[in-house]
């Protein structure tokens, strides 16, 4: 039984399940590192999922579908940034507003434009020549037989770390999130930095949605994400605002999820609700015991006001 639960196919599924988390969490991380908490990720994901799906359905072009999801996310990010950065609204509350908007709007559009459940062929798996044939420990199956978006999501982990730690822009992001007054005094445009990170976060949330609707599930239905975006926000905390931490968190989540799917697939009789709860319980425990690391953006949720300290 253990063998069945830890089969390579389970880990391969975990890689796929981790994809939307990675997109959404890495995007959210940029916003949070610059000082903006966006609780509306799930709503943006739903909008991205819908427009990605609908575009693919109409045009049958995956490229256009991805573009549509990115643009949708960008617009949602722009709105979020306007509310949080320019209007300086309470971020916890306005994020819930963004979520509810995305939830309702995507459902409305689905009913008006699609109506009945449909599916698309979506992204197909790309076998990496040579590597996908590695039999040893099932490496080939686990890592090298996925659709394009899976590869992109995992590649974004080191890319995000590089942007954050090795570029002048990353420096500005970190400064804006920890001491915006200092950043401002050093000639950094805090408002601009926050707009950009929140818009990046929006685009990545849109892509996260599309990775569900046109790659992983290949369908759209109401509330397709079922709260996945909120887990993505929690993962940012879990990962202590670092890409590697987020990767670990996302994998932890998706492995447990994949095993849980396998449990029901092979028909073991334990309530699946337990397995569904497990990742959330782990997150709460991790958050309680997490040390106060210096990476924490101390200006998170605090609007920036020049000259105030």
């Amino acid at each position, binding site marked *: 039984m253990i063998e069945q639960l830890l089969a390579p196919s389970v880990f391969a599924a975990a890689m796929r399940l981790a994809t939307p988390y990675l997109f959404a969490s890495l995007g959210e991380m940029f916003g949070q590192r610059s000082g903006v908490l966006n609780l509306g990720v799930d709503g943006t994901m739903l909008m991205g999922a819908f427009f990605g799906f609908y575009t693919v359905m109409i045009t049958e072009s995956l490229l256009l579908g991805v573009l549509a999801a990115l643009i949708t996310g960008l617009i949602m990010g722009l709105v979020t940034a306007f509310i949080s950065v320019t209007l300086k609204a309470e971020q916890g509350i306005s994020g819930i507003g963004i979520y509810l908007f995305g939830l309702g709007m995507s459902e409305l559009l689905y009913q008006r434009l699609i109506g009945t459940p449909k599916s698309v062929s979506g992204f197909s798996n790309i076998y990496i020549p040579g590597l996908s044939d590695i039999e040893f420990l099932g490496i080939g199956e686990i890592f090298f037989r996925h659709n394009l978006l899976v590869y992109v999501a995992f590649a974004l982990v080191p890319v995000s770390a590089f942007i954050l730690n090795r570029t*002048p822009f990353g420096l500005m992001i970190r*400064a804006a999130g920890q001491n915006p007054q200092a950043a401002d005094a050093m000639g950094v445009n805090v408002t601009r930095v926050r707009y950009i990170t929140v818009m990046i976060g929006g685009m990545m949330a849109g892509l996260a949605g599309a990775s569900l609707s046109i790659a992983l599930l290949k369908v759209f239905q109401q509330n397709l994400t079922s709260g996945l975006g909120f887990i993505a926000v929690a993962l940012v905390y879990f990962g202590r605002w670092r890409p590697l931490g987020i990767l670990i968190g996302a994998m932890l989540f998706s492995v447990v999820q994949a095993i849980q799917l396998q449990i029901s697939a092979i028909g073991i009789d334990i309530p699946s609700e337990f397995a569904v709860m497990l990742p959330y319980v782990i997150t709460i425990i991790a958050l309680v015991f997490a040390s106060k690391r210096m990476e924490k953006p101390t200006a998170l949720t605090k609007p920036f006001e020049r000259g105030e300290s």
Partner: protein
Amino acid sequence: MSATLPTGHRRIDQLEMRGIVKRFPGVLAVDHVDFDVCSGEIHALLGENGAGKSTLMKMLYGLYQQDEGVVRLNNAEVRIRSPHDAIQNGVGMIHQHFMLVPSLTVAENIALGMKSSRGWRLDLDLVSKRIRELSERYNLKVEPDIPTWQLAVGEQQRVEILRALYRGAALLILDEPTAVLTPQEVDDLFVILKKMTADGHALIFISHKLHEVLAISQRVTVLRDGRRVDTIPTEGATRLKLAEMMVGRPVVLEYERPEVTVYSDRLQVRNVSALNDRGEVGLRELSLSVAGGEIVGVAGVSGNGQHEMAQVIAGLRPLTGGKIEINGQDVTGRSPSVVRKMGVAYIPEERMIDGVVKDFTVAENLVLHDHGRKPFVSQRIFMNFKAIRDACQEAIRAYEIKTPGPDVPIKNLSGGNIQKLVLARELARQPQLLIAAQPTRGVDIGATEYIHRQLLKERARGTAILLISEDLDEIRALSDRIVVMYEGQIMGIVPGKDVNIRQLGAMMAGTPLDKVAEMS
């Protein structure tokens, strides 16, 4: 084309601000002020809190925009709309609250907001190299790869100065740079500043400490209520003259301290330990006593346990070890309300946070503690607002509190007047022990003088007073004994009379008294 500085940047031969006006809603913060500074000069800007010093300089650094007036740099008019513009023009500023991002390293903090020579990749190795060159030249010792949260305050200030130099500051504004330093660190800073002026930098030194202004500057401009009182050469100026220019009337800088009867120990602190807000050890095995009729001054650089000590005694912070006695009675671990009933009064360090409820009226703040007591209640449950208002009128008169009346929100009052109200509230209880934490911080000279006199009056009445202050002048002017704290420990206790300032400084920097005595 003007000459260049040894840092390779363009020199500012002269900077001139003319007719500068800045209005905030309801206030004329800066009123037609002229100011200028030249290469090689330290020009001190002196004034009380709210006189407009910081506002004027924030305009020069682009944090505020002036409503009227012009800024001329090397005789050419410039508009400085943001800190970015200021930096472009060679103007740098060292802020009172340091502008460092704690998790970033020294090099990252300095590279922040600057173009990288490698485009979209950081060039921290080159930045570090240049930092080392500059720190060599100006004797600003600092390690580029350490995160700044690990640095001591003095080191953080060096990073700030380095950063300004790195960015080509030819004119540097220093906003109260000595406020957080030990006397030795102040000496080190002055050496650095002199080196900079010798190289042709222009410096503006904002301060309200008269002796420092006299020691370091060539010219002094005094501001009062947003107006320029005068600009005079430092040579020939005296503390008394500068103080009078600041306040606008004759002032007293030293007090008579008559001999008073000293009673038995009112406060006994024995081997007390406690944690600070970050959960680290904040107080280690601390012991001291204060007798009735005695002022014990606690000196030390900010953040060395003074704050925790005041809170522990007031019952606001739990102990991890030790014992506290008031009038011989054990109050260890008792609640603030019990401690207050024992006759302890407390003037907290953060008056707007811990001292008053800022949206409450003056009268309400006066009875924050005594509102449940006669005559402020009638029939046990109803507040007697007339009695409260009468008591407030009396306090306003007795303590010379400047307020439109008892019913205005306290936040509309100036810092000095708020502090007088806190003092009125605490002294009304005729305390046995008074803990005064930074009682005159951010308070104007007039109110400071008044508060000092009240403290001496309490001393004469036989109250035991624990005075915690970062202002060494205040400590020396009032204390019978001086306790110096460093990293939560007492470095030594010395008599307040004829105290040796170098000795105090060495203790503030972490040398115990016996070691200091050996050295001298």
